[in-house]
């Protein structure tokens, strides 16, 4: 019989596969902070913008929520991770800013430096 360690390794492998099948290897991974504080600051609205964009055909983007990293005064925060590039973290991402991030960063690859943390 499999030991718990063997079992958990199997579970991890399965989990990785599931995450990948959800599009984790997409070129751009977008993480939206969704803790109470972030939501209070408006991250739900930002999330909706990204979600809508994907539903409307934005491809190669993996959208996920995440907890609070602790940058209270800059919330809501959104992080964009691309392979081989320094991760970019945006602060105070309102719905409007989110829309621009979609247009400029996700679609055109431009890093909007004035909003980065």
């Amino acid at each position, binding site marked *: 019989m499999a030991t718990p360690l063997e079992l958990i390794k199997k579970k991890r492998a399965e989990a990785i596969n599931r995450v990948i099948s959800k599009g984790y290897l997409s070129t751009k991974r977008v993480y939206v902070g969704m803790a109470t*504080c972030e939501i*209070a600051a408006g991250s739900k609205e930002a999330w909706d913008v990204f979600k809508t964009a994907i539903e409307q055909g934005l491809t190669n983007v993996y959208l996920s929520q995440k907890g609070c990293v602790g940058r*209270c005064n800059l919330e809501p925060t959104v992080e964009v991770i691309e392979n081989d590039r320094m991760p970019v973290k945006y602060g105070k991402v309102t719905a409007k800013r989110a829309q621009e991030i979609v247009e400029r960063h996700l679609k055109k690859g431009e890093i909007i430096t004035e909003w980065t943390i």
Partner: protein
Amino acid sequence: MNLDATKLSELDAFMAETAHKTNSHSYVIAVLHKAQQLFGYLPREAMDYIAHAMNIPTAHIWGVATFYHFFNLKPVGKHPVSVCMGTACYVKGAKLVLDAIKEELRITIGETTEDGIFTLQETRCIGACGLAPVMMVGDKIYGDITPKKAVKVLAQIRKETV
């Protein structure tokens, strides 16, 4: 006052879930939470009902309900208004905001406006310290609030409600 039968049966169902658990009496706080969720506050009739259903003396239920600040013993307005008095908010002037609201609504903490629209509450840190000072109306959080902004928001809500 007669309690709404549908809500009561929902409460019954909730109590039935806890009844078979070990130490089932200990779920009284959870049941009170449920009752408040259903009735908006804890009517005496509801507490009485729970006391008899759970076989817990009424004085004890009363003692528990009055101990915890989360429980409302009086009906609450349509829009509960709370100002966060956590340290971050306090340092950034939450007290002034609270005073302005008190004056605007002509009620003090724990009271409900005559028209039943607002109930004023004081709350501990809600964890939105980055937005301090913070006011909550219902579930919605208003950050970086000033006395003036607060009054304006409330006026707007009142207009929409009436």
